């Protein structure tokens, strides 16, 4: 049997990172949402905000736990499966990842303990601070990891000597040409993802006529966020696209499904790209629109895949579609934002109707868009691991056997199915149970640390969320 360690390692990495990215996609936004709720609890002293915060904190804890463990796997996979990559880029990317660990991971982990377990042990202000620091940690983590990732797309500030990178300018490494666009685009995507989950859950409660006060707060705030971010995201996506056109034209050609390129290029709405024949089948296109979008001129010249040697082309058969899924979801998000404005003006935001059902249906959209976008950008980088400089094929561990990778791939698939299956089940249980009902009077007891015993029925531990047998 002929097992290719390179192909298997690529599949394994794609599998592991696709799973992993779902959790940060959600928890970065959620951490900020919790910090906002904690702030409102601190300022207003209304029990509603506290119980909402506690509810989302439980959800956060499960998602964060799954994100952490799948993240550890990735750090080690860099070395086990991509040892050549580690050696070649270690001088450049090692420090960025190290900075992620010491600025972000420790902050998150230390203050998550206080956020989850410390409410009765620290003053309110410190508890709020813990929420803010956890949120800060998640954002810092995104900063560093996207810097490292962007550098592989648009390497700068380093030179190749004897097959390894050496840094000449750290500023240029960290703030490499595509980084600002990628960071802005990704953070906005993460906030939108969280926004749609919060909106969906809130709408679900309104439809079920439960936790109405909680649901109204969640619905109003998340939809306001979506309404600001959805159009912004389309704008940022356009900027990112222009940046990609400048630095990775082959990726753009594959995303657009252009083989010939040139002036007055059409925007292809539907097509089945065919690598063998170097053409599209069943193409439906609008003339010249692609040139207008990409260059902001009707006569603008855009790249086609045939401008590049066959061995340097990314795969349009996948990219064409992942890109369209992402953009399509962006348009749906914009539509939701517009409907929200109409509903709000008409004063029908909180009365259960088709819009709430739509919102429930939209809950997974952010995740799908992020995965599709991630596939677009990463598969679009192929066949390079460091764009234009180091090929993916030269990054894999030389001593690796196909059998070892296949074993680990199967093990990861089985384990992830079990773990994330169970995790999703518990998350859905938590969502169905909903936030605890808290009255302002319950909280008259000062929440400042006084001894080490939990004292209110609220935090009675060990309450199972599973139905008894």
């Amino acid at each position, binding site marked *: 049997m002929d097992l290719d360690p390179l192909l298997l390692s690529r599949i394994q990495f794609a599998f592991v990172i696709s799973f992993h990215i779902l959790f940060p996609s959600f928890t970065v936004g959620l951490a900020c949402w919790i910090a906002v709720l904690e702030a409102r609890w601190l300022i207003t002293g209304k029990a509603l905000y506290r119980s909402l915060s506690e509810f989302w904190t439980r959800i956060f804890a499960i998602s964060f736990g799954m994100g952490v463990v799948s993240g550890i796997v990735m750090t080690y996979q860099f070395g086990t499966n991509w040892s050549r990559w580690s050696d070649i880029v270690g001088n450049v990317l090692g420090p960025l990842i190290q900075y992620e660990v010491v600025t972000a991971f*420790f902050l998150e982990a230390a203050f998550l303990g206080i956020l989850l377990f410390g409410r009765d042990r620290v003053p309110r202000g410190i508890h709020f601070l813990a929420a803010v620091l956890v949120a800060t940690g998640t954002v810092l983590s995104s900063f560093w990891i996207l810097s490292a990732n962007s550098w592989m797309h648009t390497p700068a500030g380093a030179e190749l000597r004897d097959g390894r990178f050496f840094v000449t300018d750290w500023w240029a490494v960290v703030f490499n040409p595509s980084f600002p666009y990628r960071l802005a685009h990704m953070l906005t995507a993460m906030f939108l993802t969280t926004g749609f989950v919060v909106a969906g859950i809130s709408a679900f409660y309104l439809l079920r006529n439960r936790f109405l006060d909680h649901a109204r707060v969640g619905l109003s705030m998340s939809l306001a966020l979506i309404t600001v971010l959805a159009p912004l995201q389309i704008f940022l996506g356009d900027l990112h696209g222009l940046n990609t056109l400048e630095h990775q034209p082959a990726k753009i050609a594959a995303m657009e499904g252009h083989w010939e390129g040139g002036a007055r290029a059409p925007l292809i709405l539907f097509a089945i790209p065919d690598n063998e024949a170097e053409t599209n089948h069943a193409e439906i296109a609008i003339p010249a629109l692609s040139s207008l979008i990409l260059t902001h001129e009707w006569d603008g010249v855009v790249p086609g895949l045939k401008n590049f040697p066959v061995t340097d082309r990314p795969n349009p058969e996948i990219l064409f579609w992942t890109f369209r899924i992402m953009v399509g979801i962006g348009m749906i998000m914009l539509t939701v934002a517009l409907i929200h404005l109409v509903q709000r003006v008409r004063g029908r935001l909180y009365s259960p109707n088709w819009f709430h059902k739509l919102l429930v249906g939209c809950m997974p959209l952010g995740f799908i868009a992020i995965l599709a976008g991630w596939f677009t950008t990463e598969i679009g980088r192929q066949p390079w691991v460091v764009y234009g400089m180091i090929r993916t094929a030269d990054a894999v561990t030389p*001593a*690796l056997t196909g059998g070892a990778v296949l074993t680990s791939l199967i093990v990861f698939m089985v384990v992830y199915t079990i773990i994330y299956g169970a995790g999703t089940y518990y998350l859905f249980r938590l969502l169905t149970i909903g936030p605890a009902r808290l009255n302002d009077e319950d909280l008259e007891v000062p929440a400042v640390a006084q001894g080490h015993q939990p004292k209110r029925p609220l935090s009675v531990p060990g309450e199972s969320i599973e139905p008894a047998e």
Partner: protein
Amino acid sequence: MEGSLLTLAWVAIVGFAVFMYVLMDGFDLGIGILYPFAPSEEARDVMMNSVAPVWDFNETWLILGGAGLFAAFPIAYAVVLPAMYLPLLLMLIALIFRGVAFEFRFKARSSRHLWNKAFFLGSLLATFAQGVVLGSFIQGIEVEGRNFAGTMLDWLTPFSLFCGVALIAGYALLGSTWLIWRTIGILQDWCFRVARRLLIVVLVLVAAVSLWTPFLDASIAGRWFSVPNILLLSPVPLMVGFLAFGLWRALDEGREVLPFAFAMGLFALSYLGLAISLWPVLIPPGITIWQAAAPPETQVFLLIGMAFLIPTILIYTAYSYWVFRGKVTGAIGYH
């Protein structure tokens, strides 16, 4: 010379991160190892709650050790990890099951016994895998150019497996002394008894590993048994004896904090002994820290940040542990 000092600083930082990991995740993995033998289900709740606020944080040191190695000694990372492919796979899978068990166990009812098992087996296998990695690291890694040149099963030797078993006993000892400090009643009584037995087992195993190691490599034997080294280094084994005696006495006297301190001391000495055996080799048998070091511009860029960030981390770590100080009784959580 400047480069050399930098490299020494990095050896210190990576060494510190790995040691912090061994100590901190050591005791919470140890709790997982002792878990199924605990006197009652309530005791198990307490055991888990004693580390629930900090385990995640403890595990971050593992990522720091890995990331530090990658950043400061990329070739070591690129050689050691492929050599340990399968034991690391085992460790990661075990840590995944163990990590989610913290969250899932309290949410589950009918499936709780499964998460109990996941917590125990995850802790046990992660520890075993770490011991195996350590053992196979000590025995050496085949390198050609800048790549690992051995096979996927090079790590599998009697010595590495033995190290795996020894580490299980070591972490269990740390775990039991931690629980003596942090719990009361039946669970604490049980831990006093367990710790005493574990101490004997650990001493026997550490002695065996210490005697076995010099046989693996003549240069390690030379390091320890040549004159005057044998005199200069003799305090290390003597201190081990002293600490072991102190730990035994502390257990007899029913002291609560001292056993954990002494157990940590034993780990520190074993770690020191290992460092003495290998210095200045980073990847046994041949690659030294000087050969593996990243270029100065990389090390400086990182060091500036670390000089500020690592003390900050230690301060808020201390704060976080202080917040959760005191005996763990019942449950403390948000669960």
